[in-house]
């Protein structure tokens, strides 16, 4: 209290009792928003069209894909997976999968990845350890939803595929939603293995993760993140 007295005295003299403005508090929620590489500093695509769900997922996979000449893709994948866990409120790092632990050359990222007779929106897979068998395989499946509902058999089918492909603890399932409706809430209740997360929460967490990484923003990844943010905005965190 004593340390605030000068401020309070000045406020009394000015008859200004509104709280002080401290923009730094915004950084704890969104990362360093003053950074030029933060996606808040970018313009989203403004082409008069709304990207479709497959376009969004394909574009995301484009920026996540590992390249021979750079490890930026792998680091972005790892940042995304950390962001997904964070957005889902899963904080125990011992229970998380981590693409950075992939055996070199085994990390794969795919959009519309075939899983039996269905296709999951985004699949990240890698091997962790000396072998390539089921016990070494790791799989992160992400089903993305923009303006669409989940069909009843989708989530169990993807889970069964993940269970067939990996040993226990070798997979993680994330349902990326633009909003929670009563139908999605019912679907989630029936599919406990799936972690529901919102686009806005994931983007916010991803930004904080990416800001910890070296700056390799060439190519429009930040602009894509801003575009998706704009598409999902108007929803809660």
């Amino acid at each position, binding site marked *: 209290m004593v340390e605030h007295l000068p401020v309070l005295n000045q406020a009394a003299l000015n008859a200004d009792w509104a709280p*002080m*403005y401290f*923009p730094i508090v915004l950084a704890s929620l*969104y990362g360093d*928003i*003053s950074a030029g590489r933060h996606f*808040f*500093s970018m313009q989203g695509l403004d082409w008069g069209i709304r990207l479709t769900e497959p376009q969004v997922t394909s574009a995301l996979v484009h920026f996540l894909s590992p390249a021979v000449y750079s490890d930026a893709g792998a680091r972005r994948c790892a940042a995304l997976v950390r962001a997904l866990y964070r957005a889902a409120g899963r904080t125990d790092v011992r229970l998380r999968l981590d693409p950075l632990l992939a055996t070199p050359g085994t990390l794969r990222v795919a959009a519309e990845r075939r899983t039996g007779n269905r296709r999951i929106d985004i699949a990240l897979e890698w091997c962790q350890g000396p072998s390539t068998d089921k016990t070494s395989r790791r799989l992160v499946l992400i089903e993305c939803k923009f303006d669409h509902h989940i069909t009843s058999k989708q989530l169990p089918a993807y889970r069964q595929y993940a269970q067939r492909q990996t040993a226990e603890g070798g997979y993680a399932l994330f349902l990326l939603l633009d909003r929670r409706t009563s139908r999605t809430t019912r679907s989630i209740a029936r599919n406990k293995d799936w972690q529901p997360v919102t686009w806005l929460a994931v983007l916010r*967490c991803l930004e904080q993760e990416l800001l910890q990484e070296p700056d390799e923003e060439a190519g429009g990844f930040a602009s894509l993140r801003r575009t998706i943010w704009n598409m999902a*905005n108007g929803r809660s965190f």
Partner: protein
Amino acid sequence: MSQTLTLPASVCDYMLKPGVRAAVDHLLEQKSDHFPIDLQWESMLDYHDGLLMAAKVRRDYVATLHSAWGMIWKEALVSEGYVLEVPFADYPPDALPSPKMVWDDALYRIYSLPGGENASLYTAVALFPNEGLVAYIAAENGSEKSLLSADNVRLKGWIPDESNYWRTRCSAGKVDSDGVVDVSALITAVREAVGVLRA
């Protein structure tokens, strides 16, 4: 009389820094029954502090428009004898200075005009990141007929806007990189419009 308006740091950041703008816009959309589950207990209050900061920006925005209105409109209205303000009870709901209306639209002040029971002069100001400070004007007689119809009136410093309003030209009230707005052109425009109304 001062011809410049200095924005408070909060409004200046909002107007000039896209990152602050995106964060504040997002926080202002949050419902009070929501809490982001990715936060931990150690950072629980950060969310509430963020909401408070966003509300602070909006409050300062309202205060800024209030000051701007005084600088731009007050003298011209008094000099023409327009001093009878319409009470809030008689405002249309979408012209009341509620947080949402001022933030989403503009700060309105409505005056009674002589010559009819409901003859009114509508004045407003708003601030935009790209266009800067903008003033609006509309006037109606007691039969809700526009007294400043774009069909009959020419205003040099204004362009016709929707719903029989006029708005000042985009370049009139630009915010400079220090958060200062030169309001001289807006004062001149307001005098022009109020003068035309008298004529």
